[in-house]
């Protein structure tokens, strides 16, 4: 088991604080590092990848400092965000060079190219590749030594939907196999589809950590929104509003449903079925309308 631990780490550039007293542990499985553009995600990933020294605090891989320690790269694979590669090489030459730098050879390079399904274009120059192809060759170069930790900075940028699905599938499999996979993204759908565990960075600060649905439930100061359809919406609304766990109910005529704001999550979830049974109302739909990552994220960003 390999974990990266960030302990009270800050990083500033001149007067600008990019990362502000962040502590987190990235363990096995797929973790999404989510934050708006400029939140400090890349700075954090660069510190985890050993390309940037923390101004204060420590960043370690199983207790070993990552900064100025080349030996960590036996376990870490890095997929940088930047496009620049050795464009004058072919895909195969590039991945082979990466394998050789790990003391490996053509066999591992070929296996990595097969993993990302780039064998068909491996003998073309990288300068002729599309963005998605580059991204996959970058992946191959990071996977060539079978690392236990994979760090990816905005890996889905520029990929078409099919390539995106393939990469997600690959990362999911790696996470399921017990590898530590961390990827950054500012696209909510990507994170939502791939990672159940997220770390949210907002303006350099660690805003939240964990399963995003659980994070939502912990936000007790925000009323929970539900969309409810039933056999008798108005009777249900009248019964629910009597209870203090409900702050507001709107009858959405267009949707043919109730929009309910609950202030006490635990109490409301028990109340709703009870009230429905007592009044012989059939519940047809009960869906949380703000438990998507998007609403959690917007709450965190505007908090």
């Amino acid at each position, binding site marked *: 088991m390999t974990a990266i631990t960030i302990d009270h780490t800050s990083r500033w550039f001149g007067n600008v604080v990019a990362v502000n007293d962040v502590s987190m542990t990235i363990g096995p499985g797929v973790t999404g590092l989510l934050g708006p553009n400029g939140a400090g995600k890349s*700075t954090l990933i660069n510190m985890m990848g*050993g390309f*940037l020294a923390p101004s204060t605090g420590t960043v370690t891989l199983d207790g070993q400092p990552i900064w100025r320690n*080349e030996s960590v790269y036996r376990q870490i*694979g890095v997929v940088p965000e930047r496009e*620049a*590669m*050795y464009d004058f090489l072919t895909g195969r030459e590039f991945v082979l060079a990466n394998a050789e730098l*790990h003391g490996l050879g053509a066999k591992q390079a070929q296996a990595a190219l097969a993993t990302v399904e780039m064998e068909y274009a491996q003998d073309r120059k990288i300068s002729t590749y599309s963005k998605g192809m580059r991204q996959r060759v970058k992946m191959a170069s990071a996977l060539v030594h079978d690392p236990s930790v994979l760090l990816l900075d905005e890996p889905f940028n520029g990929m078409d939907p099919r390539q995106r699905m393939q990469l997600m599938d690959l990362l999911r499999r790696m996470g399921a196999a017990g590898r530590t996979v961390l990827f950054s993204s500012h696209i909510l759908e990507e994170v939502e589809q791939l990672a159940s565990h997220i770390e949210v960075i907002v303006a350099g600060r660690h805003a939240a950590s964990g399963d995003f649905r659980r994070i939502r439930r912990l936000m007790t100061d925000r009323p929970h929104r539900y969309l409810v359809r039933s056999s008798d919406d108005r009777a249900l609304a009248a019964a629910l509003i009597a209870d203090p766990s409900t702050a507001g109910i709107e009858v959405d005529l267009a949707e043919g449903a109730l929009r309910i704001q609950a202030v006490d999550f635990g109490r409301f979830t028990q109340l709703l079925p009870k009230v429905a049974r007592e009044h012989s109302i059939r519940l047809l739909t009960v869906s949380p309308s703000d438990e998507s990552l998007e609403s959690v994220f917007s709450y965190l960003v505007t908090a």
Partner: protein
Amino acid sequence: MYNPTVARLTYRAVLGRRRAAILFILPALLLAISVAVRSFNGVDDQIAANVLGGFAIAAMVPLIGVIAGTGSIAPEIDDGSIVYLLSKPVKRSSIIFTKLIVAIAVTMVFSAVPTLIAGYILNGNGQQIAIAYTVAALVASIAYSALFLLLGTVSRNAVVIGLIYALGWEAFFGTLVPGARTLSVQQWALALAEDIGGEGLIGSDVGLPVAVVLLSVVTVAATWYAGQKLRVLKLAGEE
């Protein structure tokens, strides 16, 4: 210390760029001048020494040193592709050492070899002039490569600074201010050539022992410092 993969990547990077055209143009120019001088003036030791000292050693070697020395690392740092070397369990010092070897080899091939051929064209190595300047070019190749490799590691404007040093300091300022000549790779290399070549044809402002010490110190110190800088190279900051 020497990493063949890093070397292969570096050779292709240095020789594959458009800038590499200068590597071919300058030697071709030297050979063309030599052929012209020989056919107009016949064999003349002093003219041979002037051409090799004035063009080959004063301009061509430092310029090729700038192209090869900075070219073997600066473009990778500029575009960030060096991340693929740095994210490997390879010692930073061995990356620098390998790149230095490549820079030296390229500089030697494109400056010392043409200098030797030009020397033979000009006066058939009379008074050992061809050999003397070739040795100077070889020695200068080592020191320039180390200096310009360091420059490529510490500055984003390595080529410009390198050119200012090579042409401004070595070629121009050095001729005006006698003190500046003591701190010149060109003069150190010429001290060796002076020792080999015929009496009175080649001159240097620096004594041989001092030149050897300074060449060694500059080469070793620049290489060591470049290795240190690479260890703390920051690739981030684009956010």
